[in-house]
C-alpha cells in the first residue's frame, strides 16, 4: 500500500506508468503475434506518437497552432540520411551531392543524433525572432516556415534528390526501438508539462499579460517549447526515413500536418494523455478506413478507384470532435491510476 500511496503523491510518475504500460503491452503483443502488417502499422504509430507528443509540448502548453514542425521532420529525415547512407548508394541516389559529403558514413544511431541536432539547431535559429508574434501573425508565419522548408526540400536537389524519391535507405527502425523512443519521449513530455518551464508556458497561454506581469520570460519559454517540438519532429523524421526507406519532400507537407494535427486535436491538446489517446485512436481509425477503402476498390462498387475516403472521413470526425468536444477527448486532463483515493489528497496540482 505504501508504494501505491507514494504513486498518488507523484502525479508525473503515475501518469507515465498509466500511459506506458498499455503501450508496452501493445508493443509486446504485436511482437508476439509476429504479423508483418500489424508490426508496420504499430511502428508507424510510435513514430507518429513522437511527433504528436512534440506538438503537444508546444501547442498544448503554449496554445499556439503550429505547422512548421512537419518541415523540421523533413529536415531530420534528410539530414539523418545524409549521414547514414552508404557511400556507394549515395553515388547512385544523390548524384549531385557535394564532394565533402560523399564519403560520410556513420552508424544509424550516430546519424540519427546528428540529423536531430541539425533539425533542432535550424529550428532554434529560425524560430527565435518569430516567438513574439501571436494570433494570426504567428499562425501565418508558422505556415510560411513550412512552405519555405518544403520549397527548399523540393529544389535543393544536391542533398534531397529534388521532388523525386530518395531511395536506398536501410531499414533500421523497428518496433522495439521506435516504441522505446516514443516512451522515453512521453515520459519527458509528461515531466515537461509539470516542470517550471511547462507551467510558465501554460501560464502564458492562459493569460499573456498576467504571465509577463509576474515575470515570466514568455519569449524564452515559448522558444524552448518550439525548439523541443522541432527536436522531437526531427528525431521522428530520422526514424521515419529508416522505416519507410524511400521518401520524397511531399511526405513532409500539408497531408502530414493534417494527420498529426488531427491526432492531437481529437485526443485533446491540453495533456500528454490526449496525445497518446489521439494517436492510438486515429491510427486505428485510419487503418480501418484504409482497409474499407481497399475493399471498395476490390468490389468496384463506384466503378473507379476510391481515393481520399480515409482523409475525408478523418476530416469530418475532426470537425465533429471540435464542435462537440472542443478540448478533445481528454479535455486537457492526464490519465491517472485511481490509487490511494481513500486518502483524498486535496493538494493535488491540477
Amino acid at each position, binding site marked *: 500500500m505504501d508504494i501505491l500511496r507514494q504513486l498518488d503523491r507523484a502525479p508525473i510518475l503515475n501518469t507515465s506508468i498509466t500511459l506506458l504500460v498499455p503501450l508496452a503491452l501493445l508493443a509486446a503483443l504485436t511482437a508476439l503475434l509476429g504479423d508483418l502488417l500489424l508490426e508496420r502499422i504499430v511502428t508507424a504509430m510510435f513514430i507518429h506518437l513522437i511527433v504528436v507528443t512534440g506538438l503537444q509540448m508546444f501547442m498544448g502548453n503554449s496554445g499556439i497552432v503550429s505547422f512548421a514542425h512537419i518541415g523540421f521532420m523533413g529536415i531530420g529525415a534528410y539530414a539523418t540520411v545524409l549521414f547514414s547512407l552508404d557511400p556507394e548508394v549515395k553515388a547512385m541516389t544523390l548524384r549531385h551531392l557535394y564532394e565533402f559529403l560523399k564519403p560520410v558514413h556513420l552508424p544509424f544511431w550516430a546519424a540519427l543524433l546528428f540529423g536531430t541536432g541539425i533539425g533542432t539547431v535550424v529550428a532554434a535559429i529560425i524560430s527565435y525572432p518569430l516567438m513574439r508574434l501571436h494570433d494570426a501573425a504567428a499562425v501565418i508565419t508558422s505556415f510560411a516556415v513550412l*512552405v519555405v522548408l518544403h520549397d*527548399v526540400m523540393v529544389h535543393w536537389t544536391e542533398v534531397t534528390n529534388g521532388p523525386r524519391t530518395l531511395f536506398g535507405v536501410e531499414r533500421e527502425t523497428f518496433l522495439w526501438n521506435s516504441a522505446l523512443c516514443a516512451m522515453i519521449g512521453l515520459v519527458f513530455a509528461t515531466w515537461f508539462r509539470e516542470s517550471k518551464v511547462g507551467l510558465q508556458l501554460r501560464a502564458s497561454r492562459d493569460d499573456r499579460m498576467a504571465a509577463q506581469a509576474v515575470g515570466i520570460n514568455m519569449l524564452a519559454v515559448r522558444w524552448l517549447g518550439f525548439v523541443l517540438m522541432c527536436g522531437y519532429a526531427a528525431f521522428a523524421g530520422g526514424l521515419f526515413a529508416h522505416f519507410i526507406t524511400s521518401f520524397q519532400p511531399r511526405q513532409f507537407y500539408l497531408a502530414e500536418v493534417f494527420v498529426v494535427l488531427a491526432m492531437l486535436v481529437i485526443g485533446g491538446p491540453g495533456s500528454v494523455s490526449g496525445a497518446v489517446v489521439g494517436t492510438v485512436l486515429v491510427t486505428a481509425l485510419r487503418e480501418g478506413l484504409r482497409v474499407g477503402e481497399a475493399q471498395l476498390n476490390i468490389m468496384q462498387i463506384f466503378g473507379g478507384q476510391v481515393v481520399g475516403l480515409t482523409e475525408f472521413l478523418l476530416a469530418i470526425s475532426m470537425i465533429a470532435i471540435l464542435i462537440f468536444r472542443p478540448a478533445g477527448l481528454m479535455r486537457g486532463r492526464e490519465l491517472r491510476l485511481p490509487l490511494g483515493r481513500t486518502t483524498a489528497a486535496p493538494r493535488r496540482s491540477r
Partner: protein
Amino acid sequence: MSNVGAILQFTIDVLSLGSLYALMALGLVIIYGILRLVNFAYGELIMVVGYALFLLSPTPLPWLVMGLLAVLVSIMTAYLTERIAFRPLRERSLTAVLITSFAVSTMLQNAAMLFVSPRARVVPLPEIFTVQVIIAERIVPLRNLIAIGVSIALLALFALLLKRTILGIALRAAADKFMMTRMLGIPANLVIGTAFAISGLLAGTVALFWFGRTGSVTPEIGLWPLLVAFVSTVIGGMRSLLGAVVGGYVLALIQMTFSNFLPPELLEFRVTFVFTLVIFILLFRPEGLIRGR
C-alpha cells in the same frame, strides 16, 4: 520603342495579376477583420469553382451562365462552411475555429478526389479568353485586360457597398469592434454570413480568371491562391481592407520583378524568397504597410 512596349507589358502583367491577388486578399481579410479567423478553407473556394465549371461543361449553357452558376457555388460553399462548421465554435475558441478551417480545407480537397478525380480536369473557358490583342507591338492576352476591368469594377462596387449601405456600415463596424456592434443590435449571424458570402463572391470571381491562366483544376489547386491571399494581407496589413488591396498589387509587383530579373537558378526558389520576405515584414512591421485603426 521596344522599351515602351516592355514597360507597358510589365505594367499590364502586374496590374492583371495584382487585381486578382487584391480581390483574393480582400475576401480573406473581410473575414479576418470580423472573426479574427485565418480561414484555411479559403483556397478551396477556387477549387470548387473549377469543379463546378467542369461538371457544367457538358451542358449546353452559355459560358457566362456557367460562370455565374460556378460563382454561386463558391458563395454557397463559403456560407455553408460558416453555417455548419464555424458557427458552433466561434464563441468558444478561435484556435478551434482555425483548426476547423484547416480540417474543412482537407475535407473539401478529399471530397473532390473522392467524388470527381484526383487527376487534373479541364475547365471550360470562353473563346474571348484566348483572344490576343496587340498594344505597342506587344502581344497581350485580352483576358488580362478583362481581369483588370472586372476587378476594378468589383472593387468599386464593394467600396460603394461598404460606404453607402446600412449592411456595409454594419460590416465595417463589426470589423472594427464586433462586440460593440452586437450590443447595438446588429445581428451577428447576419453580418458574419454576409461576410462569408462576400468572400465567396470575391474568390469565385478570381477563380474564373485563375482558370483562364491554368486551364485545369486539381484538388490541390487552392493552395497557391491561399498562400497569395495570406502573403498579400500580411504585406498590406491584416486589419485594413485597403491594405489587403495594396498588398495584392505589391505582391504581384514583387513576383513579376522576381520572374523577370532573378537568374534562372534562383528563380526556382522564388517561393522561398517571397515567404522569407513575408516573415521579415511580420518581424519588423507586424501590422503591415497600412495600419488599421
